[in-house]
């Protein structure tokens, strides 16, 4: 099994999907000769031609809107928005068309389409290049929202997203793109959308996170076990919507405690939704209030100070210790 970065694993998933199904085609800015600014589509134009790997004009609404039309025409477009900050240009097309044609046509036109886009901070980028706005898309009925956390699940989730009959917002943690390598099996893998994964078994508390924040969360979990005698269970959410409430609830029912970590802003964020669901499902099992470590409700700081905005292992450890020490 080769060790791949997330960029390479995503490239592999796209290649496999295109190889397998001639209806899969790619559209986006600078994805052709340039292979995308992060090189996720590297060499694919050379392999599949300009008709299947299309450099578009610089217009995100155009990319998403025409992608929707191509899906109606029976194709499987995988469109790239260069940075998630620029999905805002396409908000109208995502909310009004991508998420709705299936419903509006009473099932006649399913929109089997994927919108891939890099999100999140930590790479010293200029303004508008570090935001995490997954909560917007989870709020829109009809969209699936998926966030991989490493090379292997990135490849398996992207394959499943391309297969899926519904439109998927595929949020790629750019801080993880080249951060580490992981073994990726030779044969194609599919990870069902809507499933969370328990990546570390534990008894004392459930830590829930996704995407780039899985790394500080897992690091915190290891430190807690080693240095503080606390044994955390760690869950990688993977799908924001639909959310695998069953796995989350079962874990928290076992541990009785929960801390949720994400880098997007707190107000109406994903953690708020998880807390609401846990209250509905397992309130009687809770022995301490659920805490959330999130980005603050401010514009993402410019990069000289971004480290103080992003959740770090120390902050997570502290929240866990407080939660475990809670004596109701």
């Amino acid at each position: 099994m080769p060790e791949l970065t997330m960029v390479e694993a995503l490239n592999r998933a796209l290649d496999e999907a295109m190889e397998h199904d001639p209806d899969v085609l790619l559209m986006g800015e600078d994805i052709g000769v340039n292979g995308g600014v992060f090189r996720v589509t590297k060499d694919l134009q050379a392999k599949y031609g300009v008709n299947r790997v299309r450099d578009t004009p610089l217009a995100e609404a155009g990319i998403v809107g025409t992608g929707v039309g191509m899906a109606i025409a029976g194709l499987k477009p995988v469109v790239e928005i260069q940075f998630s900050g620029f999905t805002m240009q396409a908000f109208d097309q995502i909310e009004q068309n991508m998420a709705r044609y299936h419903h509006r046509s009473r099932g006649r036109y399913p929109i089997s389409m994927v919108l891939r886009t890099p999100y999140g901070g930590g790479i010293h980028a200029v303004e508008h290049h570090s935001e995490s706005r997954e909560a917007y898309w989870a709020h829109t009925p009809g969209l699936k929202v998926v966030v991989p956390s490493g090379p292997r699940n990135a490849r398996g989730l992207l394959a499943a997203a391309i297969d899926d009959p519904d439109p998927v917002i595929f949020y790629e943690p750019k801080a993880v793109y080249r951060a580490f390598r992981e073994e990726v099996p030779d044969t194609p893998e599919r990870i069902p959308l809507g499933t969370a994964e328990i990546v570390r078994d534990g008894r004392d508390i459930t830590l829930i996170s996704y995407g780039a924040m899985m790394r500080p969360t897992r690091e915190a979990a290891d430190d807690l076990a080693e240095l503080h005698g606390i044994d955390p269970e760690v869950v990688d959410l993977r799908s924001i919507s639909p959310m695998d409430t069953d796995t989350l609830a079962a874990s928290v029912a076992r541990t009785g405690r929960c801390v949720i970590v994400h880098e997007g802003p707190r107000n109406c964020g994903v953690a708020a939704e998880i807390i609401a669901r846990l209250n509905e499902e397992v309130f009687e099992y809770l022995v301490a209030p659920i805490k959330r470590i999130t980005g603050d409700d401010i514009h993402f700081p410019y990069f000289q100070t971004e480290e103080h905005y992003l959740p770090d292992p120390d902050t997570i450890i502290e929240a866990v210790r407080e939660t475990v020490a809670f004596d109701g």
Partner: protein
Amino acid sequence: MTHRTMDSVRSSKGKNRRTPRSADEDANAARRTIATPGVEDLRILAADGSVDRDLDPHLDDDELLRIHRAMVLTRVFDQRMLTMQRQGQMGTFAPGAGQEATQIGQVYPLTERDWFSPSYRSFGAQIWRGWEMERLMLLWDGFFEGFAPPPGVRDLPFSIVIGSHVLPAVGVAMGMQYREEDSVMVTNFGDGALSQGVVAEGLNFAAVNQAPIVFVCENNGWAISTRVEQQCHVDPLALRGVGFGVPSIRVDGNDVLAMIVATREAIERARHGGGPTFIEAVTYRMGVHTTADDPKVYRTDDEVEAWEDRCPLRRFGIYLLGRNVTDQAGLERIQQECEAEVLAARDRFRSRAHAKPREAFDFVFADMPDELARQRQAYLEKLDRKGVE
């Protein structure tokens, strides 16, 4: 440049479509001509430095030297920023070498009461407008304070989101019109930005309101790896303006005199109630898109070299020498003075480049809600615990 009809534009589809990438392809052609019905072409100073005397704005020597110095300073600043970036002392940066004439020409005719709303590749124009170089260095190195317009400068912070700033720029112009101020807005954006729907909306709002605004489209041939021909199926791009009923002109963007003449006419028309103008400035991005980009992947060195012959600085230098405004030694002195100025700015930048994480919550609201004040308190306590100032 020869006369081209709409038909020739329409029929010139596909890969082999000939795009005159510069108004100075033929140094002897007439300088003020019709590009295509509805669009004028303008060039005053040819690539070889020869000038069309009838069109020369006849600026006095001091002004000519000021313009030259501004272009040289822009180039030197650009080179210094690249060096700093390569040395790990600067963030990702979008260089502008080759576009100095477009930059300086578009703001030269503006007065202090006028407005400017640029895109990111605009430090030349920003420096001319009064942005201290150290402020721009702070900005590109990840300090938000660098975005604050200097006191008294009626500029908006530059926009990184392509085309997004054009609508607010039109709105400012509509505001000036409503308040009966005779101030004009100049806004710039790239060839790529023309693909954004909001830019079309901006042209339309400006046209129907006859707002006092000048749109400068810096056609530098590329939007990252995407050629202008992949971006837009009309040529000249200035035809876009025509479609909205906006007077439109294609200017040799490497000819600072032509840029000044075109922008000055447009500004004066806007100031006197004549509404918007669309200027396509034909120029070329000589360097990388940003320091994170590798143009070798998508373009040839030959193409870049061909544009070196059309360098806006060299061309203007020949003109100055020809008019006896200065001599070779004078040009070299300007170069040295600019280098010293940029180094002094770098030193001031270094003395100010201190991260201020405690300001992260400032300016999110004018009136901070209690809930956010509580978050801020917790954040400051976290900084205290981490021992961060």
